């Protein structure tokens, strides 16, 4: 089983969700900014690398947890991945779960992410990012909880 958390750039919302999923970030409290910066790949994705599905680790049930920056072409991307994988004989329905994390991202994260990644203004972008991510954190954790529930066939939010 493969869980792919995706957002625009694959550097912030998706990375935090994957880290929560893997137990690298706490679920019962909001992490400090330092804890966020310690997460591998948080605010690290190079825009020239968008599209690459990167595996961040394997969870306790043996599922691969991945992140993906899909810009604004998710619909076509998702379809192309499935169709080509099918032709190559490596697609089994229900085995791959794409989770859109972008709806959880607030404007602090979007603007901060843009400044830090696309514009290269880290000093300006990073404080905004840390603030925004901490603000959005409960929502991100809730999304991971829903995802886990969905995979285990429990009712949502369970």
């Amino acid at each position, binding site marked *: 089983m493969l869980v792919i958390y995706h957002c625009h750039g694959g550097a912030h919302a998706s990375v935090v969700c994957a880290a929560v999923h893997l137990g690298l970030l706490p679920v019962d409290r909001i992490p400090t900014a330092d804890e966020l910066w310690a997460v591998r790949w948080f605010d690290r994705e190079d825009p020239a690398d968008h*599209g690459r599905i990167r595996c961040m680790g394997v969870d306790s049930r043996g599922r691969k947890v991945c992140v993906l920056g*899909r810009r604004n072409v998710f619909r076509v991307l998702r379809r192309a991945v499935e169709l080509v994988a099918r032709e190559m004989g490596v697609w089994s329905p229900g085995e791959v779960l794409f989770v859109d994390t972008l709806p959880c991202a607030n404007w602090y994260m979007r603007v901060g992410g843009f400044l830090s990644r696309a514009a290269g203004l880290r000093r300006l972008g990073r404080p905004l990012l840390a603030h925004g991510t901490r603000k959005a954190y409960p929502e991100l954790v809730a999304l991971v909880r829903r995802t886990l529930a969905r995979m285990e066939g429990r009712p949502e939010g369970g």
Partner: protein
Amino acid sequence: MKVFYNCYGGTHTSVAAAALHTGRLDPRRPPRVRDIVGLPLFDRVPTEDIGLAFPYGRGPDGEDVFVIGFGPGKTVIKRAVTSFLELKGVCAEDYLFVDALPRATWAIKVGGTLSRRLGLVPLGRLLAAWGVQRAYDRLVSLVEETRAKVRRRRGGASLTVPSRGG
């Protein structure tokens, strides 16, 4: 081994290249406009089907040929597809993505837009087919390069220009 010809919509340039690859078009002489219009899938894939891979037959060395449209995000999408296959343990030698879009002429692009996006099918289709005719040599060379790559991967003997029409 599978070869995927990709372009924007997966219905003009990539279809012409795939037709050449699978022997539906003769590389030695430019086809008539009506031959191009009559190709399966030519100018037939609707915009909402961008991203679907369609089988297009078999090449001379037994490789399966497909056409696929990647739309506006081709680099991101191609990377997603190849990294997914990598995660699944598919050997990179077993597939080949060939970007046909750089071989497209303005007539194919304008014709394709007229037909697919604006619904002016008769005009757009003819213009795109005419564009394929004009771009024929470039498409033939793209397909020859691709076939040579396929042959090399197969460990085939000759690295020279493949015999035409084979």
